């Protein structure tokens, strides 16, 4: 029981971490809570099943392709909705973000219908269901390993991108101070686009994995996942990428244990409660710097 919950928590926590990283990166560069990020995650799942069922692409092709589509969606979202408001008051950008979130959600409802769709199981590699490891009464399928391994690879890759590459350097510079970064010859808008692309790709990947794992894809799935991932980002300290990763895993595990031992009815409530408590008591989160009192939100 204990180990089973831990495994469940780690798997789902890894997925939260992938979404949370997107929130935190975007917040880092443009100080905006991108409410529509959960919808990118939802679109990832829908892209994947569309590619698989309509174009009958194999899973391993559909997966990166959907991630690429999500990256493009992220960039478009920024260009269409957020870029015109770059210098507007925070309130305006925040309201736009909520508006886009609702818009995308309903767009998906029009395109794919509001009923939950199953993930085409036949497209998944057959060995996903077979047990890979078994210890202490817990069976780990290859699918668990796949999700966890991929999450790990992506997180390490993301860290390398941020730490080692020129992009990453530019991103960190923009996050620190946009004007100074621009003065140093960085094309700020392009860096922001990269960030949205990266966040979108990760969010999309998370969406596909959740869709395949729970075998149910519906237009409102991004809403709860988005809030939970945001809670994870807050828990880790918003703006901090390792914080978001840790926050996601901690939240996933807490949720699994809370649902297992306290009350499964309040499963979703755990992340909301964690989020509220963290925001009130330690707004800087586990890893974040104390948020500067930014310019008035409106």
């Amino acid at each position, binding site marked *: 029981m204990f180990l089973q919950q831990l495994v469940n928590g780690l798997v789902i926590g890894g997925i939260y971490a992938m979404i949370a990283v997107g929130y935190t990166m975007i917040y880092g560069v443009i100080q905006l809570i991108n409410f529509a990020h959960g919808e990118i995650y939802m679109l990832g799942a829908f892209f994947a099943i569309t590619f698989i069922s309509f174009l009958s692409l194999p899973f391993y092709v559909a997966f990166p392709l959907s991630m690429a589509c999500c990256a493009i969606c992220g960039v478009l979202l920024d260009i269409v909705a957020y870029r015109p408001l770059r210098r*507007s008051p925070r309130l305006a950008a925040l*309201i*736009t973000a909520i*508006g886009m979130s609702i818009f995308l*959600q309903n767009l998906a409802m029009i395109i794919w219908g509001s009923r939950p769709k199953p993930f085409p199981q036949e497209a998944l590699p057959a060995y996903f269901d077979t047990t890979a490891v078994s210890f202490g009464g817990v069976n780990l399928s290859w699918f668990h390993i796949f999700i966890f391994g991929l999450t790990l690879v992506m997180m390490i890759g993301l860290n390398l991108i941020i730490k080692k590459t020129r992009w990453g350097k530019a991103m960190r510079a923009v996050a620190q101070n946009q004007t100074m970064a621009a003065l140093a010859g960085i094309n700020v808008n392009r860096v922001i686009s990269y960030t949205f692309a990266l966040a979108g790709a990760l969010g999309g990947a998370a969406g596909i994995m959740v869709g395949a794992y729970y075998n149910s894809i519906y237009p409102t799935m991004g809403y709860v996942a988005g809030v939970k991932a945001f809670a994870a980002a807050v828990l880790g300290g918003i703006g901090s990428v390792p914080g978001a990763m840790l926050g996601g895993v901690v939240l996933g595990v807490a949720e699994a244990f809370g649902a297992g031992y306290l009350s499964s009815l*309040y499963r979703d409530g755990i992340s909301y409660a964690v989020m509220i408590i963290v*925001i009130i008591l330690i707004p800087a989160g586990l890893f974040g710097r104390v948020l500067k009192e930014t310019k008035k939100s409106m």
Partner: protein
Amino acid sequence: MDKPISPNLTRGAKIRIGLLILALVLPVLPLVSDYLLHIIILIFLYMILSLGLNIVPGFNGLLDLGYVGFYGIGAYTSGLLTYHFGLSYWVIIPLAFINGAIWGILLGAPTLRLTGDYFAIVTFGFSELVVLFLTNEIWLTRGPLGLPGIDVVSIDLTLFGGPKWEFVGEVPYYYLALCMVLVTVFVMYRIQDSRLGRAWFAIRDDEVAAVSCGINLLTYKVIAFAISAAFGAVGGSFFARWVTFLSPDMFKFWESFLILCMIVLGGMGNIWGVMIGAALLVSLSEVLREILPLFGLPAEVRFLAFGLIMVLMMRYRPAGMLPIPAVAAQMRAGRTKRKKEKPVAGLKS
């Protein structure tokens, strides 16, 4: 700007009196069906709600995404007190008001010192928790089954030997809702012109300047949040007794979003604008609800239009249809700055 047409009344006053008379005689006019009255009551309800919410983003410049939480609290306060204790609606109104205010203070006091974004997220989390509570505490709220058969509003004069008159049909509710809207508007105008309102506007326009004028930010923000929550709860209490059925699904985030959209559309901080926003969006919502199924789309898709309205308003008319100068200036401030800074910072791509 109003040019007096008659010696005594300005044009604005004439319009107001005209509208009031129209509102008073509306139910007896020909061609006014129960369905139309139903929608107008809905408009009145959303006017109360959006006027209540308006205090927080409109008067104080803070984003509140959890307003529906207070609406739900008010509705269930009213529903449960009726269901279990059979209290009269006239007792419930003040109780709902107080309950809403208490929750507003409980949530606002620890969170209003946060920056705007965090505050928005906390309110959102709060409203989700309210829905979860209403769904899961079945012993109290009957959970997802909903709370059916809540008594209608009645005027009970049996205590004084008079008759007992129960509200049947839409017409009595219409007048009740109208009265509540009028009271709300009156209160809003009085608050707006009071010391409290001026303090809020000062906070909205410039927090630092407001503090240096001796305004206690936290106190005034908590008062704003509590009053806003209280009006949300009163709206909810009316809703419960009007539709006589409650279910937790009625208080999802969509509602908060819809009410916020009314304010954004009408003009944040503008009492008239907010009311017009409510009227327009409720009408649009009802029209879309009728039209969308004809195209084989679920009625929820109408939120697509609301999302679009919000995005477009923020892009092209961020202060709403009827902007008030202070908000418009703030919303513009960043944009003019961008033009000036562009060549310096080289932000053009």
